[in-house]
């Protein structure tokens, strides 16, 4: 707590200066560019993809990268790897986004409640969070897939459940700091309702922490989601998903390595880009580092 109160201003919400500060750092600028490009590629996949993602041509099965018309080769069904990767990226990012929004949203709400109603709710909520943290995400994923059947829904559920406790802890921590500040007391004195107080004053001042964590978490969630799909719990054929693609290619690792390796490289790039961006955002948003 003391570290945060050394400065006399609260942790500030993102301001116009953030982007400029972010772009000053080459790695950060590059990762931001990469993230933007990846998201654009995912959104524009139907326009960019050279072929139909579901249309196979078994005569082209396992063509290596560099074959005619197939710069990255074809998968075991003879589908263009580029097309599959674009659509796979779309599914993976969407899966990650859904999980971060759902799990992060619920986690943040729990965090605010725990901090705001500290006396009554902090204990129960935080113990619940501790319990949730004790289950590995893969185990939760297996359980959910066993109940609802494997699929994207199950993976999003598992990833959300795994995100809730982490977000709840982070939000509670930063909200506790804000709660002690004078303007909260002042706002309370004006007779504001609790809900309005949380929404108008508490939440905006915790936004930077939420934002940084969400970005970092996004990378982790994509990795975890790919792992769950790799185990066969996620996207079902023919839906392309990066982890599922790697899993399918694993069977042909000695004979057509590109089928597994290329999606793995893409997962690596996505996760790296989001992690670097998350780190850079944290630096840029941290008021103590502001010169």
């Amino acid at each position, binding site marked *: 707590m003391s570290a945060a109160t050394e400065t006399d201003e609260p942790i500030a919400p993102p301001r116009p200066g953030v982007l400029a500060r972010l772009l000053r750092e080459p790695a950060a600028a590059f990762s931001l560019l990469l993230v933007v490009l990846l998201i654009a590629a995912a959104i524009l996949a139907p326009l960019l993809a050279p072929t139909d993602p*579901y249309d196979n041509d*078994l005569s082209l099965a396992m063509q290596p990268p560099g074959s005619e018309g197939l710069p990255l080769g074809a998968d075991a*069904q003879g589908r263009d790897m580029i097309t599959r990767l674009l659509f796979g990226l779309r599914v993976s990012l969407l899966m990650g986004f859904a999980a971060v929004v759902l799990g992060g949203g619920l986690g943040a709400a729990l965090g605010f409640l725990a901090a705001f109603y500290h006396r009554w709710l902090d204990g129960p909520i935080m113990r619940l969070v501790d319990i949730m943290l004790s289950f590995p995400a893969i185990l939760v994923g297996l359980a959910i897939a066993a109940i609802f*059947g494997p*699929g994207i829904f199950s993976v999003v559920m598992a990833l959300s459940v795994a995100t809730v406790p982490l977000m709840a802890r982070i939000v509670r921590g930063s909200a506790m700091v804000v709660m002690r500040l004078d303007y909260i007391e002042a706002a309370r004195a004006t007779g504001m309702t609790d809900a309005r107080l949380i929404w108008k004053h508490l939440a905006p001042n915790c936004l930077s922490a939420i934002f940084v964590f969400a970005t970092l978490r996004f990378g982790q969630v994509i990795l975890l989601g790919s792992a769950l799909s790799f185990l*066969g719990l996620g996207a*079902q054929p023919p839906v392309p998903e990066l982890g599922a693609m790697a899993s399918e290619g694993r*069977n042909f690792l000695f004979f057509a390595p590109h089928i597994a390796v290329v999606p793995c490289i893409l997962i690596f790039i996505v996760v790296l880009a989001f992690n670097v961006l998350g780190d850079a955002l944290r630096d840029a948003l941290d008021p103590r580092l502001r010169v």
Partner: protein
Amino acid sequence: MRKTIGAALLALAAAVPAGDALAQAANPRNTLVVLREIDADNYDPPRSTARSAGETIYMMSDTLVALDFDMRTIRPLLAERWEVSPDGKTYTFHLRRDVTFCDGRPFTADDVVYSINRWIDPATRSPVRWRAGPVKEVRARDAYTVEYELNEPFGELLYQLTLFFASIVDRNSVERLGQNFGVQGFNGTGPYCWVSWTPRQDLVLQRHPNYRWGPAGMYQNPSPQVDRVVWRIAPESQTRLAALQTGQGDVTQYVPPIAVQQLQRTPNIRMSRQDNYFWDHFMGFKVDKPVVNDPAVRRAINMAVNRDAMVRATWFGTAVPADSYLNPATTGFDAEAARLVPRFDPDGARRVLDEAGWRMGSDGVRVKDGQRASFLVYGLQTQAAQQYLQAIQADLRRIGIEMRIQLWDATVGWGRLATQEFDAFVMSYPYLTATDGFSLYFNSANRPTPNRMNWNDPATDAALREAQTAVDPAVRAAAIGRAQRIIAENNVWLPVAREQLWVASAARVEGVRAHGIYGVALYKGLDIRLTR
């Protein structure tokens, strides 16, 4: 170029040390190490239906009669000859007099009576009890003669008695071990005897010194040639391949299809193939579920799928496209029924659907009376299923049918496959004869499993019954042919592929010949020798 890279990578795999289970020195002299994918839950003949149980049970025990490599000819084993009564209800088996169990006790007719009665005893809860036929009584006429009396003729009996469920076991050992028979110990008359079992690791057998009653006419040697056999589990296919090439394993039938061609070119590996192998893959339709209850849809699906391309892309030349419900080498195969299975004709498939009133919808999926031509298929999570289902899916998409795939891990999959929540399913299965395979799947009494199609047709039932019970072989053949034609006309399945059986063995192993009864490659393994 691709092949060179593949071969290089394979060689690299061989150089990489295999998993812990295999990280031992090269195998000792005269010990054969068999590599396999999974273990069995137990090794008690009537209580396990797993192929992995059968693999060792065939080595540890014998059946009354054996099945030759042509998968048609019945050979003498424990019974040196037999007679069938004119009414087809009583089989008299004359037993060999020189047989002993692994513990040295002589084998007699009482052991046969005990083992068969134990198999069919409801208390044993054998899932394959029906394979013994409608038994009235099994009795010992004298010490070396057994009378097997049925309530009605059962033309399949001798074939069924070649299966490992009918293995003869020692009563004393069963009574001593109880539920642990086949878990803690085993006592049979087979060419090899139980030494130890470490579940999910290995099962060790040693040579049965007295054994010289191997099935005549099938093997060159009536006795086993190897001192010890170790059945070792190696779940990862790449591990098995590497172990085989580094001498840490000697023989395996669990070769990934994609590796077969490469292994054939590998100098220190020998490959043996069995063409008379009855292990088929198919997709079955629940004929009482929307969309797939329309015979036109099932016919169109059969016409839309390009089997040749699909099977090549899935099995890489180690399976044959199934253009009929059964392998043409099967006893009871009906060629006319095979001709009724539609050939690949996507335009024809579209016409069939048009004529049946399925109109193309805006999303590329056909619609009839507000019903979208979409169905859900279940299966177990295997590499083959994943591959060929996606090929089928793409082919069906081209004619306006949406197929949704849901594959399950084997731990929950069998349970899911027993429900009514899916519209179609994929599966692979071993069979002996046409009557064997068809009675299992198309008899209305076998709903909901294994008749997961819910096929309920009195004409089929009558034909199957006649095929089982008629005394005259010609009548039986005609009846099972009729059943095959009914099923083919109605397109109850989409036949997918017929696997070939390949066995890979290391250079020091000789005499490996793939058999394939119930999917088991080595069977008695009598001719297998180690040269160093």
